[in-house]
């Protein structure tokens, strides 16, 4: 079995030798880029489907332990980590080729993300009511919080001072100071908060027990305004290129496109089959994991039409390797 050390050897090597790392990072640009792939986390199938984005065919299915759900790119973008909550593990893959790079055992990882300064890997353990901060290079636990019930989604301020976590079972939003690793505040936010996104100096939080999102002041957790999107607003994504926000509405079975400034809904797309996480390809098409349908839908936002690709059971998170061409921070929410 691959150990904690070898599985994540690259970030370790990079941390040890930053100068060498830069030349290593520059190298792949010269080699021909591998064909773009999509990785789909089949949470009910204990597997990751690898899709050739050009032919739209599943070309490989890779095993995990039990329940892969979400992903994070390592700071050097050389590994994608996929969380497996009931398998108590993080699985590492090459994000360009999907080559398995081993796994590490950590408790109940659900949603996860590296702080923008690459110091910590923050992990929400939804089932155990833990918010865990791991050292980004060694993956040793640095600090554990029990801020409330069912921590689900998370995001950070771009200056890495603060983190924000929705507490799905406590109807609250919690924020931590990442310098002192102390809780800053915990405020009631609405029934069953889910997706969290830092957006233009504010926070946007989906209210799954309600019918839309709220905008929150990150300094104190005060709610500034609300915007209706659809019943059961679940997750929120930001399209870097198109400057659009997307909100998936679980009960409404829709994907809402929002103006990033006014937050007004511009269009609602009907997506049957339990839409979950999304990815956006360079042509602007939206790749949507559809939980019940066991498919990925590839939708043209101009027409709302979509093709489907059958994947495994209960597809949850989705990663498109085309996002690796972007510079700067890449997370599951900033596409």
């Amino acid at each position, binding site marked *: *079995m691959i150990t904690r050390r070898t599985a994540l050897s690259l970030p370790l090597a990079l941390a040890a030798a930053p100068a060498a790392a830069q030349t290593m990072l520059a190298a792949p640009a010269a080699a021909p880029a591998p064909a773009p792939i999509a990785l789909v986390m089949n949470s*009910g*199938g*204990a*597997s990751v489907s690898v899709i050739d984005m050009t032919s739209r065919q599943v070309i490989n299915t890779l*095993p995990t*332990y*039990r329940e892969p759900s979400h992903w994070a790119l390592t700071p050097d973008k050389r590994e994608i980590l996929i969380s497996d909550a*009931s*398998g*108590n*593990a993080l699985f590492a893959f090459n994000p360009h080729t999907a080559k398995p790079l081993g796994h590490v*055992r*950590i*408790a*109940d990882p659900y949603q996860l993300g590296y702080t923008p300064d690459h110091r910590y890997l923050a992990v929400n*353990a*939804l*089932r*155990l*009511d*833990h918010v865990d901060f791991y050292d980004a290079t060694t993956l040793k636990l640095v600090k*554990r919080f*029990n801020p409330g*019930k*069912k921590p*689900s989604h998370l995001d950070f301020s771009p200056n890495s001072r603060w983190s924000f976590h929705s507490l*799905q*079972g406590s109807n609250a939003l919690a924020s931590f100071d990442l310098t002192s690793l102390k809780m800053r505040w915990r405020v009631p936010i609405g*029934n*069953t908060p889910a997706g969290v996104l830092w957006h233009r100096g504010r926070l946007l939080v989906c209210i*799954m*027990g309600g019918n839309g999102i709220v905008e929150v002041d990150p300094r104190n957790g005060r709610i500034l305004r609300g915007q209706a999107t659809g*019943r*059961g607003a*679940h997750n929120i994504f930001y399209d870097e290129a198109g400057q659009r926000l997307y909100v998936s509405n*679980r*009960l409404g*079975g829709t994907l809402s496109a929002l103006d990033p400034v006014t937050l007004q809904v511009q269009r609602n797309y009907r997506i049957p*089959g*339990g839409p979950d996480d999304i990815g956006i390809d360079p042509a602007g098409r939206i790749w949507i994991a559809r*939980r*019940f*349908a*066991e498919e990925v839908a590839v939708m043209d936002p101009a027409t709302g039409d979509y093709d489907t690709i*059958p994947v*495994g*059971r*209960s597809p949850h998170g989705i990663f498109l390797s085309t996002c690796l061409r972007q510079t700067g921070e890449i997370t599951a929410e900033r596409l």
Partner: protein
Amino acid sequence: MGLDRCFSIIAGAIDQHLILPVLYRFGWMEWGDLSFNWALVCVYGLFAVILTYAVCWPLEAWRPVEHWPSRKAVLVDIFYTLLNRVGVIPVVTFLLFYQVQTDFTGQLVDMGFIPPTLETLIPGLFGHPLITFGLYALILDFADYWRHRLSHSFRAWYALHALHHAQRQMSFWSDDRNHILDDFISFLWFFAVGLAIGIPPLQFPLLILGLRFMESLSHANIRLSFGPFERLLVSPRFHRLHHAKRAAGRHSCNYGAVFPFWDMIFRTADFSAVWLPTGDAKAPEALATGSYLAQQLTGAKMFAAALARRRHT
């Protein structure tokens, strides 16, 4: 379209149009991530009931062990089956114990224990989910053998389990007739096992369904043995011997649920080619022919009495 995908779509529709609206209406959306799994449990459970009925009913009509003038005593078993298989009891148990379970597991994790899976204990299993599943099935069946055997060994525990044995008209509906406290003990038992070896991979619901089908079949009122395979899988004849009147109580045989291996290894197997009447002569009549509530109440009283007697002696 595969059966699996078909079931997922049905479960998705149930979740979307039935469960989620209820959760939403009452402000319980925090369960919205799990409700699809509940719907799946219900859909597979219902399919298992239909499948069992479709296979066992004609067989019971064709080669019954016993002919009954009235099938009234079977009705309550049908109720038990629906309650258990179509998800009511499993979901309620899950919800009741959710917090206890997470708090307890959280404490263990705080102490540095990360619950393993069989693949972390035996790394060679990783990437072979079918073999892993088979191994889980064996281990869980082994654990169930001992749970069942112990439930016959302790007076108070058998006071609960007697409900399962009281049925004199045993049929393929009888597998789920258990006292609710007995169900809770089973839940805790398998939670403990889960902490030690993790939960099995869940991508083979049809196999899980097959195992449950075997448990129903083993109770069926069918003159059926598996011939040369009698020592590989528990047959109706094998389990009927466990339910025989003479075997009720503390000295029984054939405790295995799916595989007879454990009975063979621990010398409790009886492969006699006989078809004996079932029931527990010592059990109060309410346990045999009473309503669901009467059975539960009687079982609870017997349990309390057995506990009290233990304290006095």
